[in-house]
């Protein structure tokens, strides 16, 4: 018989404490399955030309004095798009996801975050280092041919250095580097994903537990299905179990 009567405060607080403890145990347990791995030796990332956080954008006059391509990061191009608009820039990063060929040119997304130029993609070392940042680059079709590996879950993509004109509305209003030159400075390589035996064991054990609990919860229905008739007499001779979960939806 399902117990009725108002909930007691003590009972409610005890229940809440049990739930909180269970959540804590689950979270800690899951944490033990998330282990950082080995980091790839980082590439030497290009130094940011402006270090002052209060003045993130360089003086245009300083840039005018530079004859060669200006070294930039994606963060600078986004924050200071008007300063760099129309200038020849040099940008280095990892090609990610896909090379989108469009006739005589191709679009690529080139990231210069720590996963590109630092320790490498997160799946390789499993250390959180922030989000992605990058810039769209339009390559001449023949220059896109130098890219052989794109970055995704299975690989660290080719690191390319592009030189071209930054146009803050270069792609029908969106910022992009219209590259004239591109070369691969570091070839991409695959990321290995060895199966974690501990995780496999936990998955197997938890699946068994889930199936066992489900079987117990639905044993009446399982027995009915197997024998073609309802077995609702308990070992004590009483018919069914008072308060057992109904097999049909309630309220109909």
């Amino acid at each position, binding site marked *: 018989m*399902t*117990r009725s*009567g*108002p*909930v007691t*405060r003590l*009972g*409610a607080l005890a229940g809440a404490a049990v739930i909180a403890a269970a959540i804590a145990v689950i*979270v800690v347990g*899951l*944490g033990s*399955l*998330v282990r950082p791995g080995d980091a790839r030796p980082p590439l030497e990332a290009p130094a940011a030309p402006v270090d002052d956080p209060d003045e993130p954008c360089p003086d245009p006059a300083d840039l005018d004095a530079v004859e060669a391509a200006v070294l930039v990061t994606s963060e600078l191009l*986004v924050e200071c*798009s008007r300063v760099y608009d129309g200038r020849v820039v040099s940008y280095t990063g990892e090609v*990610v*996801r*896909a*090379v*989108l060929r*469009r006739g005589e040119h191709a679009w690529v*997304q080139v*990231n210069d975050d720590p*996963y590109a130029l630092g320790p490498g993609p*997160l799946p390789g070392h*499993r250390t*959180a*280092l922030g*989000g992605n940042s*990058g810039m*769209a680059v339009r390559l001449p079709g023949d220059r896109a041919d130098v890219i052989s590996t794109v970055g995704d*879950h*299975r690989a660290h993509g080719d690191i390319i250095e592009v030189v071209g004109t930054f146009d803050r*509305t270069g*792609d*029908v*209003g*969106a910022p992009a580097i219209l590259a004239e030159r591109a070369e691969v400075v570091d070839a991409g390589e695959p*990321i290995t*994903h060895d*199966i974690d035996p501990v*995780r*496999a064991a*936990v*998955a197997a054990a*938890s699946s068994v*537990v*889930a199936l066992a*609990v*489900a079987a*117990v*919860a*639905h044993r009446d229905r399982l027995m009915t299905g197997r024998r073609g008739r309802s077995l609702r007499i308990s070992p004590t001779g009483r018919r069914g179990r008072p*308060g057992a*979960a*109904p097999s049909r*939806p*309630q*309220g*109909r």
Partner: protein
Amino acid sequence: MNSVLIRPDRRDLRLIALYTGRVLTGLGVVMLLPAGLGVVRGEYNDALGFVIGAALAVTVGQLAEWRLPVRRTLEWSHGMAVVALSWLAAAFVGAVPLYLSSHYGGFLDAYFDAMSGFATAGLAVINDLDHLADSVNVWRHLMQFLGGQGLVLVALSMFAGGTGLVGLYSGEAREERILPNVRRTAQFIWRVALLYAVAGTSALWLAMLWAGMPVVDGLLHAFMVFMAAFDTGGFAPTAASLGFYRSAAVEAVAAVLMIAGALSFALHYHLLHRRPGELWRNVQTRWLLASFVMLSAIAVAGLVTAGTFGETGGIVRRGLFQMLSAHTGTGFSTVPGRSFVADWGVVAPAAVVAAMALGGMAGSTTGGIKILRIAVTVKAVVRDVRRVMLPENTVVVQRYYSDGRQRVLSDDLVRTAVVILLLYLALYLLGALAGLAYGYSFEEAAFESTSAAAAVGLSVGIVGPDLATPLKLVYILQMWMGRLEFVAVFAFVGYIAAILRGRP
């Protein structure tokens, strides 16, 4: 106040826990889909993560089934509490495979993204999205699909009936009755979603192939972008959002799906039954169109003044797309998020915030105040002004056309609309104040807060992997309350208050 609170019966709590457990069981079963994808794509550790998550969900759900049997009819208040609790619990189990992917700094981060998924918000604190496993990426988008349709409703329309089902339906912010009963309405909503899934994914796939995407990756991306677009969620397969594809075709198809997602399911019913006239007669269509045109005009004026785009093409393709993304509550971006504060001036971002705050139609997948409440409030003001101006004994009746017939603007309807509107404004303000407390400018704080509470997902950069923990909690609360439109949350809090302070 204390004297009117009656402590709930044990059977009430068991009933709520039982139905919450059933939602989790359903969710656990769904989690096996990305697990299978993980196996196919060779992402074995992630597949194991899904198995662990599914096992946890099913274990909890079936424990409730086994140990909490109760003969009691699910009533409206139970349904409301089930919805509120289920969303909290679903985000917990949904976060398990995310956390196990190692792309999150802690479990709270994974919980943030899971709640953002189910609430179709689209804000994300994930690390290194561009190297995320396909199975985990699909799961992120699948959560938006489930949340947009109403995960509790579809799971429990199989199990419940009576007024409780009405509570479940209303608790997930749906009010319109498309078909004679709630169960059939829920089934219709899912049929529409699946119809759009086939058509939308196919169209996006073709557009992506044309854009240069590889075949298999293109199909996966098309499916993910469909789920985010139709459910106005805003997650995207890559960190560059929809801008990654550099394709007008992809953006055009996505725009159609976003608009479809912003239309009420009642309108979809009429459209599917070849009654296109209902589209224009509906008060929400007219007001949504008027709102979009007006706010877009303001945004365009702001962009021209700020000199953001040097050509008309940029204003149309980027500016208007962002306005559509904001107004439908989708959150796709085709420009870097920082551009809103770094390059868009002041007026255009303000228009974006207003669009996010308003949202789409009531009874759609969008968040925000909803255009119907705006229309009702403004019509009520007009009615009251007319009452004042006309002779004292004049009877003024204000009508509006919705869901196939003329309706009278009743005082109850007006009161409900205004209360929800005020609650949303308060929620937007709460989040903005929290952002201000962390040193962000008002423009940035208001933008991010509105995006979270209205379940949009556009970001100026506040939300990211380095988001401060208290702000994370504030935005999680905003997404939860905003998606459920407050009532279910209040019912849930009411149960807690009754337990703690009520009389036996």
